[in-house]
Every structure is written in C-alpha cells, then in structure tokens.
C-alpha cells in the first residue's frame, strides 16, 4: 500500500478533566474514502477540529503528507481542504465573492481554477447570487468548492449529507467518488448515519465515546462472517435433528420457520448434508447481516438523532 496521506497518531483531547478523545489511531491513503462514523457526541467533530488545527491537541499528533499539524501547521494545512460542521460562508457575499475571498488566502489560485471548481460542483448558475439566498444543498456544494480550491491531498467533510435530500446525497456521493478515483484525493467523511455514507466509503472507522472501536474494510468479501439462513425443508422435525448434530450451527428458531446461524462458508456443506439425509430442500434463504446491524451492535444502542 502507498504511503498514508494522513496519519492520526495516538490522538488525545482533554477538555478540563474530561477525556473527549482517547488513543485514536488510523491512516488514510491516497484515493481512499474513509467514513468516520459514530453517534452524536462521540467525538467526530472534535477529532476533525484537531486534524485542521482549530483546537489544540492534548497528546499525539496528526501528520499530513509528512507534516505535523502541531509543528508545521502551515505546510500541513495547505494539503487539507475541509468543511467543519456546517458549510458556513459569508451570507452577504455572492458565491463567487466567497470563493475569491478564500482563494486569496492560499497561494496561486487563478480565476480559471475557481471556475473549474464551480463547474465541478455544478454551481455555475448560482455563483453570482448572494449565499444568503442559497439552499442548504447549494451551500454544501459551495463548501466543497471552497475546500477544493487549492487542490488538497486530503478532503475532510464533516457531516456532508446533513440536511440534504436523497438526490442531494446521491450527488455528493458522486463528487466524492470522482475526486477519489480521478484526482486521487483522500477523503474523510463523517456521519452519524452509516446508511448515508456507506455507499461512498472504502473503509469506515467507528468511534464511540472518544475511542475508535472498529475499522472495517467495505471492499473485502466477508466470507468468514456469520450468516443467518432461513430453511424451507421437509420433514422439518427430521431436519432439526440433523442440524443439532452438526458442529458450528446454531438453531435460532423452529416454530414458524426454521432459522439457523452459521459461518457463510459452511452453507454448501449444510445443503449437501440435508440432501444426503433425504431431506427435501425447497429453499435456502440467506439473510446477510448488514453493516448497519453490525454498526448498531457495536455502538450498543440505536442512534436516534
């Protein structure tokens, strides 16, 4: 694997006596979209604020393209484009004036580059309108445009799908995938709703109470994962007897339907055993445990808001 664009090393943040973030470690690679998931208040935004130097780091470091955000702030931050929390812009200025404002703060951003970015996010028509009149979706796009101006290696988007309708979310997903694939940008997207960003991420990290409790590669085939299987067999009683004798299979339900839990790999073996015992198999229905289920399982409670 190529060198990490961003390394989060042993990150800690205390506010007063409270430990907000504890022992956070992860890396993001070029062209990778990393989903940063956790319930509200888990520490996502705090972590992002440390990544971009808005708040101090109690212990640990964030290294961006080899530059420490603590010691070489300006070098590190020039590789980062970000929206922290809401995409807040100057409401009394037009989209163009806002972009021009932020362009002047970085080096060598031409008007041509600004126009290129506007086209990328599809704001051509509204760019001369005051931002105060923008919808949330348009502001989100302007926020992304602002973050992309200086062609950063890392793009950090905090809750980019917040307040967007499904069409808007799909659009954002398309930009992000395109940026990762075509421009080789590393993207970090945070969300408290896994389902909204699941489809755009290559990998997710789950944070709860300030600790990273799991990272999961979404592109790997999860063959070793357990599956829940509904069986439609006859005779049912005979089948249950057979199932009970088999190792690594747990019978979950026998009353309405026959449901068992087993390793995905063991499913073919289960079917052949049934057939050999002269049990008629009418259907084998695998209900895959979704990422959402696992997510809820891991964070231990349902996320309401």
């Amino acid at each position, binding site marked *: 694997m190529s060198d990490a664009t961003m390394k989060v090393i042993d990150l800690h943040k205390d506010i007063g006596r409270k430990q907000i973030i504890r022992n956070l470690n992860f890396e993001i690679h070029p062209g990778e979209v990393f989903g940063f998931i956790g319930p509200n208040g888990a520490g996502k935004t705090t972590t992002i*604020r440390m990544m*971009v*130097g*808005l*708040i*101090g780091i109690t212990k640990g470091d964030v290294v961006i393209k080899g530059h420490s955000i603590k010691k070489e*702030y*300006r*070098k590190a*931050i*020039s590789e*980062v484009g*970000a929206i*922290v*929390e*809401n995409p*807040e*812009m*100057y*409401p*009394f*200025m037009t989209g163009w*004036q806002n972009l021009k*404002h*932020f362009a*002047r*703060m*970085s*080096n060598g951003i031409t008007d041509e580059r600004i126009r290129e970015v506007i086209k990328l996010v599809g704001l051509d028509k509204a760019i001369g309108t005051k931002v105060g009149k923008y919808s949330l979706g348009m502001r989100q796009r302007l926020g992304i445009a*602002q973050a992309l101006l200086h062609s950063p290696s890392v793009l950090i988007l905090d809750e980019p799908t917040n307040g967007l309708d499904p069409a808007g979310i799909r659009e954002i997903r398309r930009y992000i995938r395109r940026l990762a694939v075509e421009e080789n940008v590393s993207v970090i997207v945070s969300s408290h709703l896994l389902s909204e960003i699941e489809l755009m991420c290559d990998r997710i990290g789950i944070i709860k109470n300030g600790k990273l409790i799991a990272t999961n590669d979404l592109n790997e085939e999860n063959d070793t994962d357990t599956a829940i299987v509904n069986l439609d067999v006859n005779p049912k009683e005979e089948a249950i007897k057979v199932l009970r004798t088999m190792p690594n299979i747990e019978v979950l339900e026998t009353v309405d339907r026959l449901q068992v839990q087993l390793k995905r790999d063991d499913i073919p073996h289960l079917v052949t055993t049934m057939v050999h015992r002269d049990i008629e198999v009418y259907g084998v229905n695998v209900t895959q445990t979704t990422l959402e289920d696992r997510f809820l399982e891991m964070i231990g409670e349902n996320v309401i808001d």
Partner: protein
Amino acid sequence: MTKLFDLVRNELAKIYVLKSTWVMYLFLVALVIFSLIMNTVTDSVDSETTYTDDWETELQEENQTLMEEIETEGEDDPFIESTNMTLIEENTYHLENDIRPYGYNAGTFVLDNLFTTSLVSLFAIIIAGGIVANEFRWGTIKQLLIRPISRSTILLSKYIAVLLFTLLTLLFLIATSVIVGLIAYGLPAINPEIIVNRPEGMASNGMLSEIFMQYGFKVLNIIVLATFGFMISSIFRSSALAIGLSMFLMFVGTTAAQALAQYAWSKYILFANTDLSVYFTPYGPIREEMTVGFSVGVIAVYMVIFIIASWAVFTKRDVA
C-alpha cells in the same frame, strides 16, 4: 508580505460590501449638511464679513464699533463686554502681527466641524467591535483559520483593516466638509494664517496645519477606542459587548477621568490622556504635572496591552 496585502483586501471587502457601511457614510454627509444648516439658521457664525486689501482700516473700524456697543449696551447685557473684547483682542492681534483676516470660509467650516468626528468614533467602534466577533457569529471563523496563514497574520490583517477604515472614513468626512464648505463659503486663500488660542495666549498657525493637528488629535482618540473595541471583540467574541463597552468609555471616559482629577493616580487613567489637544488650549490637562510626552507614553502602554491581550487570546484559543 503580499499575503498580508491580500488579507487586508479581504477584510476591507467584507466591510465595504455591507450596505450598513454605506449608510454610515450617508450619515456623515447628513451631519455635515446639518452643521451647515445650523450655521445658517442660528446665525452663529458671521459669514457676511469679508475683508479687502485695506483690511487694516476695516479692522480698526470694526474695533471701534465693538467698543461703542460695549458702552451703549454693556449695562443691559453683561455678556457683550466679554464677547466683544475677545473679538477686539483677535483683531488687534491681526493688526499687530500683520496677519490678514479672511472672514468665515471653507477652512473655518472644516475646523468648526471637528465635532463630527465623534460619528467616526462611533463607526470605527462598530467596525472594530465586529471584525473578529462577527466571524464567530457567522461561523466563518473556522473557514478563515484553516488556511496556510498563521492566526497572528489574520489578526494583524483585521487590525490593519480597522485602522484603514478609520482613516478612510475620516478622510471622507474631511473631504465632505471641504466640499460643502467651498460651496457655501468659498475659499479666499489656500492656507491663510489663522488666530488660535494656546496655553500661552493668542498665537497664529497656518490653516492647513491647524486642521491637520486638530483632526490628528481626534484620530488618535478614535484609534485608541477602536483598539479597545478590537480587544474586547477578540477576547469575548461578542460584538455587542465590544461596541457597548467602547461606546460607554467614549461617553464617560473623559468625564470620569476629570472627576477623579484630585487623585494623583488619575493621570494614569487612559482617558485622562487620550485627548492631546488639551495641551494646545488654555484649558490644559486634568493635572498640572502632565505633559504631552507623558500622555503619549501612557497611551502607548495601554495600546500595547490591548494588542497583546487580543493576540494572546486569539492565537491560543480552541475554536469550537
């Protein structure tokens, strides 16, 4: 250095894109015109009297008339004696020092309009009080700080923008006064010598230099107030607090310092020192032992404290 220039440009753009800023400028024009109207309606200035090349005879005649007025009406109206005596003294000074008088003109109007600078104070306080706090209110502070620019440079650019705004606004005010004054009263000479009251008595000064000096003292005062507002804005992130406190000090600061004048320590109060013009009038400072140098020193110390406090808080704070 070029980056700082761009940043200041950004800050000024954010100030001047707002309609409320232009409303401020309309108020300034309105105030100057109001001043002209008051001059005309109340007859408080004598814009009729002009002098020819034979001004020496004219002044002597004027003095005679003034003396006669004191003799005839002095018993009924005790004020006439003092007002007329002042005029006579002035005329005599003109005669003795061979300084030609020109009557009321655009320059005199500009000097009379010195009071209009308090509106500039108010506007400078509003801008200074908002320039940092508003970024927090709008939520744009996060976007502003995640750039390859140190926080110190960003703060400096904002402070420079406040200073430039103050100067530009003051220049606009003076220009308005000059134009209105020219239209209403004309200008008989570019830079005539005028009579001024100094601690040591009557003296003369060039009109331009007097305008420069008087408005200069005011701008110093304004900058001190604006710097104070800027500090409160940076520390407390509240423009209302910054503007409120600065305006409070603007109105009561000098009076409070005067009320405490009996105590020796009162000379270290900032507002006992901010108006340097007192050293150039017969009134003088609140305590005898104070000098211009002393006041400049006190102002400098306060300004350094304000700036360091703003900087220390702004660069160290966690931006949430």
